[in-house]
């Protein structure tokens, strides 16, 4: 009887290399002036941060500071991977005014809304 299951050998070239990233946790708030986004990326400092705007999306990439490991590992819960998360932006945001602040491994992104989008009172004239 012939073998029922046949496997194709996986060519080494077929395997694609991919880098694993951790998804950082975020808090997102909206006020009438804009959005505020807080992302937790412990082990990342200002130099390791890469924020890219592409179309209507924003990509946050945080590269960890290289830590010299000395000695024997007794417990490991942290990951060595870098952080990455992509968000879709509300078109009301004025992308030229986006600002970022990095403090103790926490990124605070401020994304103000464009002036004309903010609710504004219209005065009725007689």
């Amino acid at each position, binding site marked *: *009887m012939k*073998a*029922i*299951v*046949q*496997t194709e050998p*996986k060519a080494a070239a077929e395997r694609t290399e991919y880098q*694993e990233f951790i*998804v950082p*946790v*975020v*808090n*997102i*708030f*909206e*006020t*009438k002036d804009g*959005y*505020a986004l*807080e992302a*937790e*990326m*412990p*082990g*990342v*400092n200002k130099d390791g941060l890469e924020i890219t705007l592409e179309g209507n999306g924003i990509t946050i990439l945080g590269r960890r*500071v290289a*830590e010299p*490991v*000395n*000695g*024997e*590992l*007794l*417990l*490991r*819960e*942290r*990951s060595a991977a870098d952080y990455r998360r992509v968000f879709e932006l509300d078109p009301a945001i004025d992308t030229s005014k986006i600002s970022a602040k990095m*403090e*103790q*491994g*926490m990124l605070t992104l401020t994304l103000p809304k464009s002036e004309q989008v903010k609710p504004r009172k219209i005065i009725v004239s007689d």
Partner: protein
Amino acid sequence: MNLTRYQRSDLGWAGFGRLSSLRDELDRLFESPWSELARTSQLLSGWTPALDVHEDKDNFVVQAELPGMKREEIDVSLHDGALSISGERKVEKKYEEAEVYRTERFFGKFQRTVTLPAPVAADKVKAQYKDGVLTITLPKIEAAKPKQIDVNVN
């Protein structure tokens, strides 16, 4: 037809190949956004910051991930050979009249305790909080350090 059992030995080998690639797929599935599932266990136990513990011949080094906190919100204490890291992250009302879209960050109290396998000099413990990582270096007491013992042969 023969009533002997069909020998699946060669089939089994091929089957393993398939199974291991399936497992690779599953591993990758759980590694990616589904790792959130692993974090749901934290919803029940509260916030437990990740720890790494290293040991070299002179020190123990404990690293805890505590992003976005202030130094005074973190408390480190050593008692009976057990290192305890605790603190509270208070909810700050930073934004006026804000609508909250997502809150994934943890707030509130946390505590992690690590029992050290060897005694340490409590007065020489150092703690540093940088880039959201708390690094605690605990020097071992002289007696606990590994020593070479010379063997004399008569």
